[in-house]
């Protein structure tokens, strides 16, 4: 997902760290963070994923006036024949995620994310039929144009829901 402006904010880092169950004070307490090696609040390792919040077109967020596939009066807001299939229900499933840290983002950074499509491949799965994999590489750069995090993501569309 391409993002022009991803402001890294302390309150967002706090909420994100809580959501992964990480109560390390470096994510929550500026004064404590000053006593640590990084010397300030930093983002936890998977935080850049939250750049989705700043992607105006992110497809996994409901948007005003547009159909949404989650339940309301009906189990889905989209007619089934339009949903495009995919056992994961919208967008498929996440297969792999890789990060390379050039440094760790901190409050005050304003990042951009640029996306390059990568390889696509197919595989026959035992538990979910035919699998369509696709890769994207996202570069997160800071306000000075310096590379901060390089992310490589692999998504998969399954033919049917994954057998349990």
């Amino acid at each position, binding site marked *: 997902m391409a993002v022009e402006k991803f402001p890294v904010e302390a309150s967002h880092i706090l909420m*994100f760290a809580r959501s992964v169950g990480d109560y390390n004070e470096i994510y929550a307490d500026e004064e404590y963070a000053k006593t640590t090696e990084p010397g300030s609040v930093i983002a*936890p*390792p998977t935080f850049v994923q939250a750049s989705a919040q700043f992607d105006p077109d992110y497809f996994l967020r409901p948007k005003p006036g547009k159909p949404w596939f989650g*339940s309301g009066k009906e189990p*889905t807001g989209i007619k089934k024949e339009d949903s495009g299939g995919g056992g994961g229900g919208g967008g498929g499933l996440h297969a792999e995620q890789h*990060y390379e840290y050039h440094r*760790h983002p901190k409050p005050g950074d304003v990042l951009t994310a640029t996306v390059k499509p990568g390889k696509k491949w197919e595989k026959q799965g035992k538990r979910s039929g035919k699998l369509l994999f696709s890769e994207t590489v996202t570069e997160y750069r800071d306000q000075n144009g310096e590379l901060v995090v390089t992310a490589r993501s692999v998504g998969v569309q399954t033919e049917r829901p994954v057998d349990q």
Partner: protein
Amino acid sequence: MALSASTLKVGDTYEEQVVEDLKRTQLVQYAGASGDYNPVHTDEVFVTKVAGYPSVFAHGMLSMGMTGKMLTNYVGDGRLTQYGVRFTRQVWPGDSLTAKATVKAVRQEEGGHIVDLDVSTVNQDGVEVVSGYASARVDP
């Protein structure tokens, strides 16, 4: 406290339980913080009646985030240089996960010391849900 290359040995392990009895509320928290509002993670009606799964399930990135907590607790704040995973099984409400790092190599790179780790997170049945690797800067 940072790790030290002089005391790390290949095969050393560190593990932590990163969640016990995962709650649907935590999936809601993760959706809100990350911005990934895919209803398969928070909408029991949609996921059972439309997507065809037995219940909501965790974002893969939540499993990776919880596993990352174990890593940063082990290697120290701001020390990770690489971290990557494959999501090998879905994680469900009620699951308890234990994340483990195993030292694969201790090496030098550009004058600094690096530890390479194998990373594995298993559920309460011992089934691997996340399989990956990480590297971190360590002290001499």
